[in-house]
């Protein structure tokens, strides 16, 4: 099994690692028994994600997908970030080995978990948006 150059780059030089102290929303997914946990911090202003940071316990692709996911959502509106799929994250990394696709699912779930927290708290949850969170019920981990 070999990773793409992009996966290795995002693993060796992860973007946006850390915490946001005054984060608007956070989402944690995964569990240590399965060997990966992702924690996503979002700073949201006027429905725009102005900053995103992550912390991940996991393998190379778990760290790389977290890093890529933060890059893909910074500057986007929350509704734009909501349509981010695990496939898009994997494609942006020039693909992941088949056994590692669950890592990209975890990255999508982490973003969505934080957004769910945000929409709920701000009273912005609508039936349309609610539909977008189905992946959080998937028990990949």
């Amino acid at each position, binding site marked *: 099994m070999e990773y793409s150059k992009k996966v290795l780059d995002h693993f060796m030089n992860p973007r946006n690692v850390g915490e946001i102290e005054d984060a608007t929303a956070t989402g944690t997914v995964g569990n*240590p028994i399965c*060997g990966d946990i992702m924690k996503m911090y979002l700073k949201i202003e006027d429905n725009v994600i102005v900053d995103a940071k992550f912390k991940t*316990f*996991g*393998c190379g*692709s778990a760290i790389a997908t977290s890093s890529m996911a933060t890059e893909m959502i910074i500057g986007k509106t929350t509704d734009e970030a909501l349509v981010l799929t695990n496939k898009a994250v994997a494609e942006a990394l020039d693909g992941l080995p088949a056994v*590692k696709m669950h890592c990209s699912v975890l990255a999508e779930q982490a973003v969505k978990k934080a957004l769910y927290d945000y929409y709920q708290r701000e009273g912005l949850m609508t039936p349309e948006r609610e539909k977008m969170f189905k992946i959080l019920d998937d028990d990949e981990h």
Partner: protein
Amino acid sequence: MNDQLERQLKEAEHSPRVYFDHAATTAPCPEVLDVVTKMLKHVFGNPSSFYKEGHKASYMLEDARSKIASLLDVRSDEIFFTSCGTESDNWALKGMAFANASKGRHIITSKIEHHAVLHSAEALEKRGYEVTYLNVDRFGLIDPDDVEKSIRKDTILVSIMTANNEIGTIEPIGEIGAICREHRVPFHSDGVQALGAIPIRPRELNCDMMSFSGHKLYAPKGVGVLYKRKGLHLANFMDGGAQEGGRRAGTENVAYAVGFAKALELAVKSLEGEAKRQTRLRDRLIDGIIQRVPHTKLNGHPTKRLPNNVNVSFEFIEGESILLLLDALGFSCSSGSACTSSSLDPSHVLLGIGMPAEIAHGSLRVTLGRSSTDEEVDRFLDVIPLVVERLRVMSPLWEDYQQGSLAAIIPEEGGKDVPIIGGYDFS
């Protein structure tokens, strides 16, 4: 810390790589390469053929067999060439099971065997055999009393490895073999990791069968050996021609058999010195890692341990990411993390010694060899704290621990004998 890591990464680009995965495989040594290439060039005959080229090949094959037999202190007709250690294990288990199906259908093995044994046992279970998988203690040791207690009237085989490939624990197989002999139950031991590392004489160890592999011994991949005590009935595994006494058909891999014999000769010759040398390097690594990296424990037994094996768990981080960073720093190592296998479960050996999955995921195996040096150990001890620190800073578990919301499983001072009771409590 990060600056230091960046500097080490740059330096690694110009430094020779450090191969620290000798339990996975070894590079064929020059003497072995020499005899193998000479054989391939000059002795191409089929040992079964009735003319000069065949006789020559047959002579070389039998010479290799008798050399191996003498180095193991057994008879030549007790040595059978196979294609690998896995084949030897499969043959020992299935051959014994099929030969004794009318006598009994119960087999005893352990939970921490190599997959070549475990999956053979599982395959036999699907065919109506019953298998007892013995537990091991927290060091990975099998209790000979447990073997004795598990022996039944219908037990047809006990299979316990000589030394574990992941955690390096050396099992009391001499004692287990004696118990088996007393109860007249054949005893097989997978000696793949042990051969060349510790003295192996199957008769002294009371083994009726032992499996060995060439490529763990500085011979090429593609050759293994099964020792089978004369008189022990074993069903054929490969049917066909009359090779290997009619017990293992298929034209013999003469060149590699000769290579195996050469490799074993060299290994036995250097064993005492190498064992001493590698044990010293091993203990430098174990002590150095535990001292430099907080929340780190040794896996396996501190002293009943292969001279070349280091296996540690670093809490709060995951093994594959450790391997990737070490690879970038020029080190080839291995891990029992799920992410380095195709399954989602961490190593069955680490789970078998009672480690919670969250700790098993953060394991690292370093296995030394003849090429390993003090300089390599120094280099490794320089970088390992940087690697662990880098990954811990990224880990939400480390963050929770630092903030006091998560209790550590491995105490800060770590150690060689840290009892682990349970996993994280998130309630």
